[in-house]
């Protein structure tokens, strides 16, 4: 038995136990219970639940440190900085909730070393973690590209790549400091998955926990019919696969501008045995027929889209929803309420390269939905991080 086959068996053993599959008798084979070849072979360290463990222990452990540091910064350093900001503003007789521009907030707080340290630690971590991941995958690029080439052709689900498609300029930025952004690196999906695991989604990502919560909370059409679902800006497909897990009989699609992103999304979904169709397409030009989808969802898409892009996407969603269909976009909707929050938002915009934050906060999202012919309603699920605030309904 070759080493690679041995490794494959280990991966499959673990995955089967997690997926509660019934075909344990086939665990000693390179084929799945359905007789299909398994999708990934390079996760030599097995799975942690549905998460294919990283290629080396060192990479995993450094990531573990960055996850811990992210939590520490958010819980402790940010709190200390909040207190410092309150002291500074009080000394100047300024209400912490004063209505002021981002630039004015920055001018008030930028010179304080503790507040500046929140930015320094965040930027250092972003730089280091993405460098680490890119180096790890580039050093073994041939192996990991070969793995994706094989996964491209496998199911369940399908993959459509359009490497020569037109990319609007706004989609090509290095959003949140990820090298190459969503379109410019062969391993964008790999980097995004681990990067968010060690950062924005820490503790809620590796098992798609946040996305399963979103899928569970998603509002459905009043007639209860959910036959076709689309996630726009699917990135690595976590919400799309979660929707498929909630609605196993529905036809589910996930589209994204990034070819490497949908490749990874497809590989991940196929690895999980979840049949989702992924395609490299624009959210503002989905190529789907009018009145096609019962449900269109998105997660953290619109803050990474230009103002014009957002308007175009909303129009396209209104076109492809069927009458009675629901548009359920989740994003960081809450405008900054304090001077310190404006400073932090500015930092994320300027130095974490959330380049379209300002556009996002200037778009009248509900108004654009109504202008596109959708009725709007407030979410039934409050204002938690993983729920939409405004939902669009097509009459």
């Amino acid at each position, binding site marked *: 038995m070759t080493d690679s086959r041995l490794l494959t068996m280990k991966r499959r053993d673990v995955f089967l136990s997690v997926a509660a599959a019934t075909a344990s008798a086939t665990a000693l084979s390179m084929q799945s219970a359905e007789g299909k070849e398994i999708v990934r072979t390079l996760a030599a360290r097995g799975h942690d639940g549905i998460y294919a*463990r990283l290629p080396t*222990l060192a990479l995993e452990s450094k990531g573990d440190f960055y996850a811990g540091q992210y939590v520490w910064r958010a819980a402790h350093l940010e709190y200390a900085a909040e207190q410092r900001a309150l002291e500074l503003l009080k000394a100047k007789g300024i209400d912490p909730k004063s209505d002021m521009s981002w630039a004015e907030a920055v001018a008030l707080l930028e010179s304080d070393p503790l507040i500046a340290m929140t930015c320094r630690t965040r930027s250092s971590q*972003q*730089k280091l973690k993405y460098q680490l991941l890119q180096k790890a995958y580039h050093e073994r690029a041939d192996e990991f590209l070969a793995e994706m080439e094989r996964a491209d052709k496998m199911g369940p689900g399908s993959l459509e790549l359009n490497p020569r498609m037109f990319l609007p300029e706004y989609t090509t930025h290095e959003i949140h400091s990820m090298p190459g952004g969503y379109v*410019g690196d062969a391993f964008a999906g790999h980097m995004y998955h681990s990067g968010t695991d060690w950062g924005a989604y820490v503790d809620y990502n590796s098992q798609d926990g946040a996305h399963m919560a979103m899928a569970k909370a998603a509002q459905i059409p009043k007639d209860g019919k959910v036959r076709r679902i689309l996630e726009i800006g699917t990135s690595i497909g976590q919400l799309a696969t979660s929707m498929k897990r909630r609605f196993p009989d529905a036809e589910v699609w996930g589209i994204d501008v990034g070819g*490497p992103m949908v490749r990874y999304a497809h590989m991940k979904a196929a690895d999980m045995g979840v049949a989702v169709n992924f395609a490299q397409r624009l959210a503002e030009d989905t190529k789907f027929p009018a009145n096609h989808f019962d449900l269109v969802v998105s997660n953290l898409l619109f803050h990474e889209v230009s103002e014009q892009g957002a308007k175009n996407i909303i129009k396209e969603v209104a076109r492809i929803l069927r009458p009675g269909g629901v548009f359920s976009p989740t994003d960081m909707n809450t405008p900054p309420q304090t001077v310190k929050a404006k400073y932090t938002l500015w930092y994320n915009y300027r130095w974490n390269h959330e380049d379209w934050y300002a556009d996002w906060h200037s778009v009248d999202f509900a108004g654009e939905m109504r202008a596109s012919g959708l009725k709007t309603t407030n979410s039934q699920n409050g204002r938690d991080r993983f729920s939409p605030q405004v939902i669009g309904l097509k009459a």
Partner: protein
Amino acid sequence: MAQSPLKTSRETYAANFVKADYDRAVFTNNPYVDSLITSLTALSANVWAIQRRMMIVEVLLEKNGAVTRDMIEQYQPTREEAAEWRKQRDSFVAEINDPFKEIGDLPYAASIDVPDPSVKKAR
């Protein structure tokens, strides 16, 4: 527009992109302080990786009396171990990072309240 540094004959599906300038940011009053913090972060991640590897080696030695490199790489901590190691990680992170939120605010030479013998002698 920038291109991926990856050189390969395989199809990557990567496109040209707009390079960001995140590497140019200086948040402290000295760019080398910024570099030091980045270095410290990298060093800390490496130390934690060694620490975590050591914990795995200890567990495997206790369980098996011997270890191989492959056993270390493959080891999947139990739920209890993962919870305990997480506590240790958080403690390690805090030990390294807490000084960043506990900075002083008194310029060291601005509050001298010590008699100066040389001044007394001159009188």
